Protein backbone atom coordinates (compact mmCIF):
# COMPACT_ATOMS: atom_id res chain seq x y z
CA UNK A 1 0.00 0.00 0.00
CA UNK A 2 1.38 3.29 -0.90
CA UNK A 3 1.78 5.82 1.82
CA UNK A 4 -0.75 8.58 1.69
CA UNK A 5 -3.11 6.88 -0.72
CA UNK A 6 -5.62 4.60 1.05
CA UNK A 7 -5.95 2.80 4.35
CA UNK A 8 -7.77 -0.50 4.63
CA UNK A 9 -8.97 -2.37 7.71
CA UNK A 10 -6.37 -5.04 7.29
CA UNK A 11 -3.45 -2.76 7.87
CA UNK A 12 -4.81 -1.00 10.93
CA UNK A 13 -2.22 -1.61 13.60
CA UNK A 14 -4.19 -1.60 16.84
CA UNK A 15 -7.67 -1.35 18.28
CA UNK A 16 -7.33 2.29 19.21
CA UNK A 17 -6.67 3.41 15.70
CA UNK A 18 -9.25 0.99 14.37
CA UNK A 19 -11.79 2.59 16.65
CA UNK A 20 -11.00 6.01 15.27
CA UNK A 21 -11.35 4.82 11.69
CA UNK A 22 -14.49 2.87 12.61
CA UNK A 23 -16.04 6.02 13.99
CA UNK A 24 -15.09 7.92 10.93
CA UNK A 25 -16.29 5.28 8.50
CA UNK A 26 -19.57 4.44 10.19
CA UNK A 27 -21.49 5.38 7.08
CA UNK A 28 -19.41 3.29 4.76
CA UNK A 29 -19.22 -0.46 4.36
CA UNK A 30 -16.48 -2.48 6.04
CA UNK A 31 -13.57 -3.58 3.95
CA UNK A 32 -14.10 -0.48 1.86
CA UNK A 33 -10.95 1.58 1.38
CA UNK A 34 -11.03 4.83 3.28
CA UNK A 35 -9.61 7.90 1.79
CA UNK A 36 -6.92 9.38 3.92
CA UNK A 37 -8.26 12.89 3.50
CA UNK A 38 -11.39 11.76 5.34
CA UNK A 39 -9.41 11.65 8.59
CA UNK A 40 -9.72 14.77 10.71
CA UNK A 41 -6.78 16.93 11.43
CA UNK A 42 -5.30 15.35 14.56
CA UNK A 43 -1.85 16.20 15.88
CA UNK A 44 0.60 13.47 15.11
CA UNK A 45 1.73 13.24 18.74
CA UNK A 46 -1.73 12.30 19.91
CA UNK A 47 -2.05 9.62 17.26
CA UNK A 48 1.34 8.29 18.21
CA UNK A 49 0.47 8.17 21.89
CA UNK A 50 -2.74 6.34 21.07
CA UNK A 51 -0.85 3.85 19.02
CA UNK A 52 1.79 3.59 21.76
CA UNK A 53 4.31 3.44 18.98
CA UNK A 54 7.32 5.47 18.34
CA UNK A 55 7.53 6.67 14.77
CA UNK A 56 9.66 4.51 12.59
CA UNK A 57 10.40 4.41 8.94
CA UNK A 58 8.44 1.17 8.34
CA UNK A 59 5.55 1.48 10.81
CA UNK A 60 1.98 2.33 9.87
CA UNK A 61 2.28 5.76 11.41
CA UNK A 62 5.04 6.64 9.04
CA UNK A 63 2.91 5.32 6.22
CA UNK A 64 0.11 7.60 7.22
CA UNK A 65 2.33 10.56 7.93
CA UNK A 66 5.33 10.92 5.73
CA UNK A 67 8.24 11.53 8.02
CA UNK A 68 9.97 14.81 8.11
CA UNK A 69 12.95 15.70 10.22
CA UNK A 70 11.10 18.31 12.28
CA UNK A 71 8.28 16.02 13.29
CA UNK A 72 10.63 13.14 14.02
CA UNK A 73 12.75 15.12 16.41
CA UNK A 74 9.72 16.67 18.09
CA UNK A 75 8.23 13.26 18.74
CA UNK A 76 11.46 11.98 20.18
CA UNK A 77 11.48 14.88 22.59
CA UNK A 78 7.95 13.99 23.70
CA UNK A 79 8.76 10.29 24.14
CA UNK A 80 8.87 10.50 27.96
CA UNK A 81 5.52 12.26 28.09
CA UNK A 82 4.03 9.62 25.84
CA UNK A 83 5.18 6.88 28.19
CA UNK A 84 3.63 8.63 31.17
CA UNK A 85 0.37 9.13 29.34
CA UNK A 86 0.32 5.50 28.26
CA UNK A 87 1.11 4.22 31.74
CA UNK A 88 -1.49 6.41 33.42
CA UNK A 89 -4.10 5.44 30.84
CA UNK A 90 -3.27 1.79 31.43
CA UNK A 91 -3.65 2.15 35.20
CA UNK A 92 -6.94 4.02 34.87
CA UNK A 93 -8.28 1.45 32.42
CA UNK A 94 -7.17 -1.38 34.72
CA UNK A 95 -8.97 0.16 37.69
CA UNK A 96 -12.07 0.71 35.56
CA UNK A 97 -11.89 -2.88 34.39
CA UNK A 98 -11.82 -4.30 37.92
CA UNK A 99 -14.63 -2.01 39.06
CA UNK A 100 -16.77 -3.09 36.12
CA UNK A 101 -15.93 -6.73 36.82
CA UNK A 102 -16.91 -6.36 40.46
CA UNK A 103 -20.19 -4.72 39.53
CA UNK A 104 -20.92 -7.50 37.08
CA UNK A 105 -20.27 -10.19 39.66
CA UNK A 106 -22.30 -8.38 42.30
CA UNK A 107 -25.17 -8.03 39.87
CA UNK A 108 -25.30 -11.76 39.23
CA UNK A 109 -24.80 -12.76 42.87
CA UNK A 110 -27.66 -10.44 43.80
CA UNK A 111 -29.98 -12.68 41.81
CA UNK A 112 -29.67 -15.32 44.54
CA UNK A 113 -32.80 -14.47 46.50
CA UNK A 114 -32.78 -15.37 50.19
CA UNK A 115 -29.11 -16.27 50.27
CA UNK A 116 -28.38 -13.78 53.04
CA UNK A 117 -31.15 -15.35 55.13
CA UNK A 118 -29.50 -18.74 54.99
CA UNK A 119 -26.21 -17.71 56.54
CA UNK A 120 -24.56 -18.75 59.77
CA UNK A 121 -26.10 -15.90 61.75
CA UNK A 122 -29.52 -17.41 61.06
CA UNK A 123 -28.93 -21.13 60.71
CA UNK A 124 -25.78 -21.73 62.74
CA UNK A 125 -23.95 -24.78 61.39
CA UNK A 126 -26.73 -25.62 58.97
CA UNK A 127 -25.55 -22.73 56.81
CA UNK A 128 -22.69 -24.94 55.66
CA UNK A 129 -25.16 -26.82 53.48
CA UNK A 130 -26.46 -23.66 51.81
CA UNK A 131 -25.34 -23.46 48.20
CA UNK A 132 -26.08 -21.66 44.97
CA UNK A 133 -27.10 -23.31 41.73
CA UNK A 134 -26.74 -21.54 38.42
CA UNK A 135 -29.79 -21.65 36.16
CA UNK A 136 -28.81 -21.12 32.54
CA UNK A 137 -32.36 -20.72 31.26
CA UNK A 138 -33.05 -17.83 33.62
CA UNK A 139 -29.42 -16.68 33.83
CA UNK A 140 -29.51 -16.35 37.60
CA UNK A 141 -28.52 -18.10 40.81
CA UNK A 142 -30.95 -20.22 42.81
CA UNK A 143 -30.49 -20.52 46.58
CA UNK A 144 -30.67 -24.06 47.93
CA UNK A 145 -30.75 -24.51 51.70
CA UNK A 146 -31.02 -27.57 53.89
CA UNK A 147 -33.34 -27.87 56.89
CA UNK A 148 -34.02 -30.76 59.26
CA UNK A 149 -37.14 -32.84 59.26
CA UNK A 150 -37.65 -33.87 62.89
CA UNK A 151 -39.28 -37.20 63.45
CA UNK A 152 -39.38 -40.07 65.91
CA UNK A 153 -37.79 -43.41 65.07
CA UNK A 154 -37.89 -46.70 66.92
CA UNK A 155 -34.47 -47.98 67.81
CA UNK A 156 -33.80 -51.68 67.71
CA UNK A 157 -31.04 -53.81 69.16
CA UNK A 158 -28.85 -52.86 66.20
CA UNK A 159 -28.81 -49.28 67.33
CA UNK A 160 -26.69 -46.87 65.36
CA UNK A 161 -26.56 -43.12 65.16
CA UNK A 162 -27.03 -43.03 61.41
CA UNK A 163 -29.73 -45.30 60.13
CA UNK A 164 -30.40 -44.83 56.45
CA UNK A 165 -30.92 -41.15 55.86
CA UNK A 166 -31.98 -40.57 59.49
CA UNK A 167 -29.62 -39.36 62.20
CA UNK A 168 -30.63 -40.18 65.76
CA UNK A 169 -30.32 -37.38 68.31
CA UNK A 170 -28.81 -39.18 71.28
CA UNK A 171 -26.49 -36.50 72.64
CA UNK A 172 -23.24 -38.19 71.71
CA UNK A 173 -20.47 -36.27 70.04
CA UNK A 174 -20.83 -38.14 66.78
CA UNK A 175 -24.57 -37.49 66.76
CA UNK A 176 -24.04 -33.81 67.46
CA UNK A 177 -21.51 -33.60 64.68
CA UNK A 178 -23.71 -35.38 62.16
CA UNK A 179 -26.76 -33.32 63.10
CA UNK A 180 -24.75 -30.07 62.83
CA UNK A 181 -25.48 -29.06 66.43
CA UNK A 182 -22.94 -27.18 68.47
CA UNK A 183 -22.03 -28.74 71.79
CA UNK A 184 -23.50 -26.97 74.79
CA UNK A 185 -21.17 -27.35 77.73
CA UNK A 186 -22.89 -24.70 79.82
CA UNK A 187 -25.95 -26.84 80.49
CA UNK A 188 -25.81 -28.46 83.92
CA UNK A 189 -25.67 -32.26 83.77
CA UNK A 190 -28.40 -32.76 86.38
CA UNK A 191 -30.96 -30.79 84.41
CA UNK A 192 -34.48 -31.71 85.41
CA UNK A 193 -36.73 -33.28 82.83
CA UNK A 194 -39.72 -35.52 82.83
CA UNK A 195 -39.28 -39.13 81.84
CA UNK A 196 -42.40 -39.78 79.87
CA UNK A 197 -43.55 -41.17 76.58
CA UNK A 198 -40.47 -43.07 75.56
CA UNK A 199 -42.15 -46.47 75.96
CA UNK A 200 -45.24 -46.91 73.80
CA UNK A 201 -48.30 -47.05 76.05
CA UNK A 202 -49.70 -50.01 74.13
CA UNK A 203 -47.05 -52.23 75.61
CA UNK A 204 -48.26 -51.46 79.11
CA UNK A 205 -51.89 -52.38 78.36
CA UNK A 206 -52.25 -55.80 76.78
Amino acid at each position, binding site marked *: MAAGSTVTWSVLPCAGFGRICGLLSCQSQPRTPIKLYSLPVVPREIITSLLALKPSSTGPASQLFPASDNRESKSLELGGIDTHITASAFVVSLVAFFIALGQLLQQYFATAGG*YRRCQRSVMRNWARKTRLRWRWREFRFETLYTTPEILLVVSDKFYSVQKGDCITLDGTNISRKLSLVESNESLPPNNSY*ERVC*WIPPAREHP
Partner: protein
Amino acid sequence: MRGCAGSPLLGSIHDRISLLSRESELIPGVHCVLPAIRFQENSWDFQLPDVVRPLAKTSVHDITIIARRLGMRWKEFDPVHGIMRAEGNRQISNATTIRSLGIVIQYIDAQSNADGESPKAHTFLHRR
Protein backbone atom coordinates in the same frame (compact mmCIF):
# COMPACT_ATOMS: atom_id res chain seq x y z
CA MET B 1 -43.62 -29.72 59.13
CA ARG B 2 -40.67 -27.44 58.64
CA GLY B 3 -38.48 -25.58 61.09
CA CYS B 4 -35.63 -23.15 61.33
CA ALA B 5 -32.25 -24.78 61.13
CA GLY B 6 -30.89 -22.60 63.90
CA SER B 7 -30.90 -25.79 65.97
CA PRO B 8 -31.92 -24.50 69.45
CA LEU B 9 -34.51 -27.26 69.61
CA LEU B 10 -32.04 -29.81 68.30
CA GLY B 11 -29.58 -28.72 70.96
CA SER B 12 -32.24 -29.06 73.65
CA ILE B 13 -33.13 -32.51 72.40
CA HIS B 14 -29.49 -33.51 72.57
CA ASP B 15 -29.11 -32.09 76.06
CA ARG B 16 -32.35 -33.20 77.66
CA ILE B 17 -33.42 -36.38 75.92
CA SER B 18 -30.02 -37.89 75.30
CA LEU B 19 -29.55 -38.90 78.95
CA LEU B 20 -32.88 -40.61 78.88
CA SER B 21 -32.02 -42.43 75.66
CA ARG B 22 -28.76 -43.77 76.97
CA GLU B 23 -30.47 -45.04 80.13
CA SER B 24 -33.20 -46.70 78.09
CA GLU B 25 -30.66 -48.66 76.11
CA LEU B 26 -29.69 -50.46 79.27
CA ILE B 27 -33.18 -51.91 79.68
CA PRO B 28 -33.26 -55.28 77.84
CA GLY B 29 -36.06 -55.83 75.39
CA VAL B 30 -37.14 -52.20 75.32
CA HIS B 31 -37.20 -50.52 71.96
CA CYS B 32 -36.92 -46.91 72.68
CA VAL B 33 -38.38 -44.20 70.49
CA LEU B 34 -35.77 -41.59 69.76
CA PRO B 35 -35.92 -38.24 68.02
CA ALA B 36 -34.10 -38.17 64.74
CA ILE B 37 -33.58 -35.80 61.85
CA ARG B 38 -33.53 -36.17 58.12
CA PHE B 39 -31.90 -33.68 55.78
CA GLN B 40 -34.14 -31.89 53.35
CA GLU B 41 -32.86 -29.59 50.66
CA ASN B 42 -35.27 -26.85 49.60
CA SER B 43 -35.22 -23.99 47.17
CA TRP B 44 -35.77 -20.43 48.30
CA ASP B 45 -37.86 -19.88 45.16
CA PHE B 46 -40.76 -21.66 46.88
CA GLN B 47 -40.48 -19.70 50.13
CA LEU B 48 -43.44 -17.51 50.95
CA PRO B 49 -42.83 -13.76 51.26
CA ASP B 50 -44.10 -13.80 54.86
CA VAL B 51 -41.42 -16.28 55.90
CA VAL B 52 -38.09 -14.57 56.39
CA ARG B 53 -36.03 -17.51 57.61
CA PRO B 54 -35.73 -21.21 56.80
CA LEU B 55 -38.18 -23.41 58.66
CA ALA B 56 -37.73 -26.98 59.77
CA LYS B 57 -40.41 -29.58 59.28
CA THR B 58 -42.12 -31.97 61.66
CA SER B 59 -45.57 -33.34 62.41
CA VAL B 60 -48.04 -32.66 65.19
CA HIS B 61 -47.59 -36.19 66.45
CA ASP B 62 -43.83 -35.93 66.74
CA ILE B 63 -43.64 -32.42 68.19
CA THR B 64 -46.28 -33.30 70.78
CA ILE B 65 -44.22 -36.19 72.11
CA ILE B 66 -40.94 -34.33 71.86
CA ALA B 67 -42.35 -31.40 73.84
CA ARG B 68 -43.48 -33.76 76.59
CA ARG B 69 -40.09 -35.43 76.68
CA LEU B 70 -38.45 -32.03 76.96
CA GLY B 71 -40.47 -31.47 80.11
CA MET B 72 -43.14 -29.15 78.77
CA ARG B 73 -46.87 -29.47 79.40
CA TRP B 74 -49.43 -28.58 76.78
CA LYS B 75 -51.53 -25.78 78.20
CA GLU B 76 -53.55 -25.44 75.01
CA PHE B 77 -53.72 -28.06 72.35
CA ASP B 78 -56.04 -27.58 69.41
CA PRO B 79 -54.01 -28.16 66.25
CA VAL B 80 -57.10 -28.14 64.06
CA HIS B 81 -57.58 -24.45 64.79
CA GLY B 82 -53.87 -23.77 65.05
CA ILE B 83 -53.80 -23.30 68.82
CA MET B 84 -50.85 -24.99 70.50
CA ARG B 85 -49.03 -23.76 73.58
CA ALA B 86 -46.71 -25.69 75.86
CA GLU B 87 -44.79 -24.49 78.90
CA GLY B 88 -42.58 -26.01 81.54
CA ASN B 89 -39.03 -26.81 82.44
CA ARG B 90 -38.00 -23.26 81.54
CA GLN B 91 -39.19 -23.65 77.97
CA ILE B 92 -42.07 -22.20 76.01
CA SER B 93 -43.61 -23.28 72.72
CA ASN B 94 -46.23 -21.18 71.03
CA ALA B 95 -48.00 -21.67 67.72
CA THR B 96 -48.93 -19.13 65.10
CA THR B 97 -51.04 -19.78 62.05
CA ILE B 98 -49.84 -18.43 58.73
CA ARG B 99 -52.28 -18.47 55.89
CA SER B 100 -51.43 -20.72 52.96
CA LEU B 101 -48.64 -22.20 55.04
CA GLY B 102 -49.89 -23.84 58.22
CA ILE B 103 -48.87 -23.68 61.85
CA VAL B 104 -45.57 -22.18 62.86
CA ILE B 105 -44.36 -23.07 66.35
CA GLN B 106 -41.83 -20.90 68.11
CA TYR B 107 -39.66 -22.55 70.72
CA ILE B 108 -37.91 -20.53 73.42
CA ASP B 109 -35.44 -22.02 75.85
CA ALA B 110 -35.04 -19.81 78.90
CA GLN B 111 -32.24 -21.96 80.27
CA SER B 112 -29.68 -20.19 78.12
CA ASN B 113 -31.15 -16.83 79.17
CA ALA B 114 -30.41 -17.67 82.79
CA ASP B 115 -26.81 -18.32 81.79
CA GLY B 116 -26.52 -14.81 80.40
CA GLU B 117 -27.27 -15.59 76.78
CA SER B 118 -30.24 -14.57 74.74
CA PRO B 119 -33.24 -16.90 74.74
CA LYS B 120 -33.13 -19.56 72.11
CA ALA B 121 -35.96 -19.33 69.67
CA HIS B 122 -36.92 -21.96 67.19
CA THR B 123 -39.74 -21.88 64.72
CA PHE B 124 -41.61 -24.74 63.20
CA LEU B 125 -44.16 -25.09 60.58
CA HIS B 126 -46.85 -27.66 60.55
CA ARG B 127 -48.24 -28.39 57.14
CA ARG B 128 -51.83 -29.44 57.31
